[in-house]
């Protein structure tokens, strides 16, 4: 017996009639007659919860969720709207400082209760849907949850997915409960699964977990570790390099390595048989440093707010791309703005094959001091980006790099106008500045974003342009503009659609000064484009 809502008046009936007519107009169920492979193309575009849910539509759909080849299971899907309202309330009140301590504790308590309850649901429905459910052929599995007492099922699930399903691509992300930072998910001591040697695992990403033993996964080629606890010994990290010899990509993000007293440790990478091609060390502030001794296949390396050094006697013949992002912003800000990074500390002599180089300044290490023995360290460098240079700092220092890179083709410089130090004090660079640059016979493109037309900026542009020859095609200076990164080693300069409105006087003065250094056009060398925007 259907209950009728008493509030439904004539408007509701008209709507129903309308819907019935519309439905009659297309009575055919077109979607259910599509072949399975097309329905899977549709389901793959839905979140896992919605895709699983289509199983109840009709018998036609019942088997489709069992065939999903990717599952993305997040605790967030289990958290009710009330949870999010509490979190919002808490954050809002904290930012305004209007909450009494006792009330704040009470809210945190409720929020954590929601998390625990959702985690129980996560555990029980994981068991009924997947551990006790039909055997699946899932290739990609992602689990994201909060560390509570209920996470034992995660380990059982991971083992099942790897041993029985043959998962190739696994991501396990453990988070701390609300406002805490210390939640770490523990894997069993014997490892992730029962039969690592026959595992299909190719890609593994772990977040907020202990580091399991990985050397038996003979197909593992991509490993991304995030938030591995500080208590992890240096040998565990070193073992990844020396024991997981099939790895090609390794990212260490916010990982730590300290003694029990909190003294950070050095990790030494010495693996002459390693196949690692890509190494990213990102915000690993709790590594004292990572010393690279031997990684013969290394092609790309990025050190982002982390200390990575190359052993001076070693060589990295395959290394062609490098990203060097400096900045240990926390706590150091304002302590020593003139912190110098010796050119020698950039280890260019170990990496002469570099073709593409990104240098970013996001912290106090904004300075590069000349090396004691300048030489042609970067003979193969083709693309150079120097980014986030504070506007008050002497922008002419990249000449140091230009001196070392006679074959440069593309030079991009980005001056950070927004986040730069207030320009109450212009900070000069001590190196000799009246000397001309060595010729840059292959330089094609020179772009400066964040160009304000200061004397020093014009000086730099003139200096570079004078060193150019017939290869030069474009010199562009944009007041507004920024860098868009495509991964760690590739980028493009984004220039605004609408140009800055320079006054006629400024414009002609800047252009005149620069154009006089531009190589003359001839039959073989087309006209050089000079843009001020």
């Amino acid at each position, binding site marked *: 017996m259907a209950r009728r809502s008493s509030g439904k008046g004539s408007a509701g009936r008209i709507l129903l009639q309308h819907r019935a007519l519309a439905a009659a107009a297309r009575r055919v169920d*077109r979607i259910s007659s599509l072949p399975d492979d097309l329905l899977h193309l549709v389901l*793959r575009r839905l979140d896992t919860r919605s895709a699983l849910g289509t*199983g109840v539509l*009709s*018998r036609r759909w*019942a088997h489709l969720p069992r065939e999903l080849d990717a599952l993305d299971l997040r605790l967030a899907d289990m958290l009710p709207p009330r949870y999010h309202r509490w979190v919002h309330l808490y954050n809002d009140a904290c930012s305004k400082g209007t909450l009494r301590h006792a009330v704040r504790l009470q809210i945190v308590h409720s929020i954590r209760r929601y998390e625990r309850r*959702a985690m129980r649901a996560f555990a029980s429905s994981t068991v009924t*849907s997947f551990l006790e459910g039909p055997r699946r052929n899932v290739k990609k599995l992602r689990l994201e949850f909060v560390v509570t007492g209920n996470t034992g099922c995660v380990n059982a699930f991971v083992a099942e997915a790897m041993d029985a399903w043959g998962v190739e691509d696994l991501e396990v992300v453990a988070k701390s409960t609300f406002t805490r930072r210390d939640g770490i998910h523990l894997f069993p001591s014997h490892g992730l699964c029962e039969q690592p040697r026959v595992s299909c695992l190719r890609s593994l990403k772990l977040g907020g977990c202990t580091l399991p033993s990985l050397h038996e996964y003979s197909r593992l080629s991509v490993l991304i570790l995030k938030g591995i606890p500080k208590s992890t010994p240096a040998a565990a990290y070193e073992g990844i390099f020396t024991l997981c010899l099939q790895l*090609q990509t390794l990212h260490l993000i916010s990982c730590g390595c300290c003694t029990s007293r909190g003294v950070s440790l050095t990790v030494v990478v010495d693996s002459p048989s390693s196949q690692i091609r890509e190494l990213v060390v990102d915000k690993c502030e709790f590594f004292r440093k990572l010393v690279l001794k031997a990684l013969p296949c290394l092609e790309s390396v990025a050190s982002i707010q982390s200390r990575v050094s190359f052993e001076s006697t070693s060589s990295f013949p395959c290394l062609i791309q490098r990203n060097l992002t400096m900045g240990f912003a926390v706590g150091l800000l304002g302590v020593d703005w003139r912190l110098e990074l010796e050119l020698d500390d950039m280890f260019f002599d170990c990496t002469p094959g570099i073709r593409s180089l990104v240098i970013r300044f996001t912290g106090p290490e904004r300075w590069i001091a000349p090396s004691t023995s300048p030489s042609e360290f970067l003979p193969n460098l083709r693309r150079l980006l120097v980014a986030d240079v504070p506007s008050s700092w002497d922008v002419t220092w990249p000449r140091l790099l230009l001196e070392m890179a006679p074959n440069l083709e593309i030079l991009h410089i980005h001056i950070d106008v927004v986040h730069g130090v207030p320009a109450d004090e212009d900070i000069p660079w001590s190196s000799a500045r009246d000397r001309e640059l060595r010729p840059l016979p292959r330089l094609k493109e020179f772009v400066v974003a964040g160009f304000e037309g200061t004397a020093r900026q014009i000086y730099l542009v003139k200096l570079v342009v004078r060193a150019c020859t017939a290869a030069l095609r474009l010199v562009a200076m944009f007041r507004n503009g920024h860098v868009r990164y495509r991964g760690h080693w590739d980028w493009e300069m984004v220039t605004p659609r609408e140009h800055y409105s320079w006054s006629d006087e400024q414009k002609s003065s800047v252009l005149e000064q620069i154009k006089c250094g531009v190589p003359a056009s001839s039959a073989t060398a087309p006209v050089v484009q000079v843009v001020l925007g």
Partner: protein
Amino acid sequence: MEVDKGKGEAEETRKVAEADRDTVTLKSSDGKLFEVSKEAAARLSTVLAGMIAGGSIDDNGTDLKQIGSEALENVVDYCNKHANSIPSAALISSSISFNTAPFKEPEEWERKFVDRLSHDALFDLVEAANFLGMERLLDVTCHKISEMMKGKSPDQIREVFNIKNDYTKEELEEIRQELAWAFYDD
């Protein structure tokens, strides 16, 4: 003799001109003819590419008996629009599969292209794209269908697509149990 020779030459030139033609003609199930850029057809459809390479394209209109004129018009329209659109930037050459979008999102014009279609025309186009092996167009149309399902309850989805629920009460209970992950609600 001379006349014949001239004729032969003219024939030859005509053939060359046809081989060089930059469009192909397609014929729908109801006999309507459509011209489409040869380059775009070969690039976007594996089936048409095979036919062009194999020389089985008919100048008077290649028969596509499975495709109605409305759907074929949309296919042709899509190919021609694609031929004129600027290819988007190359994908990021990162070796990491996690956290990158597994599908290339439809471009703005592709979205608009499928948004204007009626319910039936959309499904006709999916079927045509499937028949012609047009991977990109399948991506775009399936994306649209998934958008029509997003954020909807099973009842709402049944209504949108006119799906008849043929489960018995017991069967439904059983499948909901199996799919517990999707049906947890606080």
